[in-house]
């Protein structure tokens, strides 16, 4: 059912996305790779990245699904406004997200001062990494799930209500399963975005090994290191991409089997 004409632009699009990654492969110093990838300099940030991105994704789910539901079921005008607000963090250049978070939660920040009084300091901790990642990844989840909710419509929810099911039951047993594919897509997107997050983290959380140095920061550090050995940066990037592809394919095929 696909018009044949579409195959040409589709393959150009795919090429544009995939070829640069292939280009990276040419830059790799293959003999040095295994040792580098098994070094603590590679594995520690990878572990931290996977851990923080996982926590962020859970946070995104907990906060984003309800937000998506509210937007999807709002009147068109309200929904339009909320959707715009939710999309704004996407526009922010990486740095600005960091400045914004610091100006809120940093020393002298609106909330930061109050938190300081109760002895809580968020910037430059692992919590800051999670917050930064959640901040940038949340819009993805909200928008994906909201779209799915809107397409699913409320016909089945109405049927469930006429059978006597309360809102909670309808939400858990009808709404969520119906938007399952959209939810999974949103989860994958926000996890990916959290895993790749650099800008806000760099400013808001800093770059301390084992605490806030996630993979993207490690890559940045390697890139900026003495001697522009992009080698190490490239190797770390490859590691990140490989891990991401494995996770995406695993989830993607699971998702496929759910759908079919």
């Amino acid at each position: 059912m696909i018009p044949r004409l579409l195959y040409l632009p589709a393959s150009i699009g795919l090429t544009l996305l995939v070829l640069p990654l292939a280009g990276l492969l040419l830059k790799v110093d293959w003999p040095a790779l295994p040792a580098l990838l098994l070094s603590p300099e590679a594995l520690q940030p990878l572990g931290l990245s996977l851990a923080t991105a996982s926590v962020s994704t859970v946070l995104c789910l907990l906060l984003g699904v309800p937000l998506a539901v509210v937007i999807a079921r709002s009147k068109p005008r309200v929904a339009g406004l909320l959707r715009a607000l939710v999309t704004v963090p996407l526009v922010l250049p990486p740095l600005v997200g960091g400045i914004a978070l610091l100006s809120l939660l940093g020393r002298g920040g609106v909330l930061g001062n109050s938190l300081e009084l109760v002895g809580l300091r968020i910037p430059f901790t692992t919590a800051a990494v999670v917050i930064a990642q959640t901040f940038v990844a949340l819009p993805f989840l909200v928008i994906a799930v909201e779209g799915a909710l809107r397409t699913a419509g409320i016909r089945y929810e109405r049927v469930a209500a006429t059978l006597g099911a309360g809102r909670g039951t309808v939400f858990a047993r009808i709404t969520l399963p119906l938007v399952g594919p959209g939810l999974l897509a949103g989860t994958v997107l926000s996890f990916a975005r959290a895993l790749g997050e650099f800008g806000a983290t760099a400013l808001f959380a800093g770059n301390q090994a084992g605490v806030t140095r996630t993979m993207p920061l490690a890559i940045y550090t390697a890139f900026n290191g003495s001697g522009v050995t992009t080698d190490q940066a490239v190797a770390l990037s490859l590691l990140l991409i490989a891990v991401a592809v494995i996770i995406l394919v695993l989830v993607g095929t699971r998702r496929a089997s759910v759908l079919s």
Partner: protein
Amino acid sequence: APSTAMDAGKPGPATGLEPQTLSVYAAASLTGAFDELALLLEDENPGVDVQVTYDGSSTLATQIAAGAPADVFASADQKNLQPLADDGLTGPATRFAGNTLRIAVAPGNPLKIENLADLARPGVITVLCAAQVPCGAASATLLANAGVTLTPASEEQNVTAVVTKIAGGEADAGLVYTTDVAANPGRVEGVTPAGADAVVGHYPIAVVEGSAHAEAAQAFVDLVLSPAGQAVLAAHGFLAP
């Protein structure tokens, strides 16, 4: 800290510090030199761990202003440190090194670039630092002194980006610090333009106010200013302050 070979002569003043972790925020161009200095202090004070965080000076300054857990701040220019000092967020700033500019070209200098005027030659792709960052300000002064006007292909956000573009072949030439040429042997080659030594960028250092490791922080600053520290810096191409 990485185990780079040290070519510093004598160790600095022994202080005998308590075991602790010292956090140093340093401009990215100091990477090689400060790795060695950190090692030096750790050697002298067993149990002390020096963590150096490198980034653009303005990023580091912003983070310190927001309460980052830094003990020492070494900036690539006065502009990023002085406001902190003025606000009492750091102690007084001391200049500890200088840096001059070189023309960076591909190894072997295939385009035979010998002076600043060559940068404006048609067909030569030149990249500079943005005027807002320290190396860019110095570049502007140097070019103005030489009476050369040129439109760079790009005004990079930091020196590393300039070096990357030249090392990668994207650009033919650019103005970078002497230390950057020294740190990238085999990737770029330096050409010293006339009048380069007249334009010096100065690096200030200060202890961050309220540091929980004030004594160790001061010891690190002292080490940097000591002859041993200065020798390390010199070995990486820095000038005396």
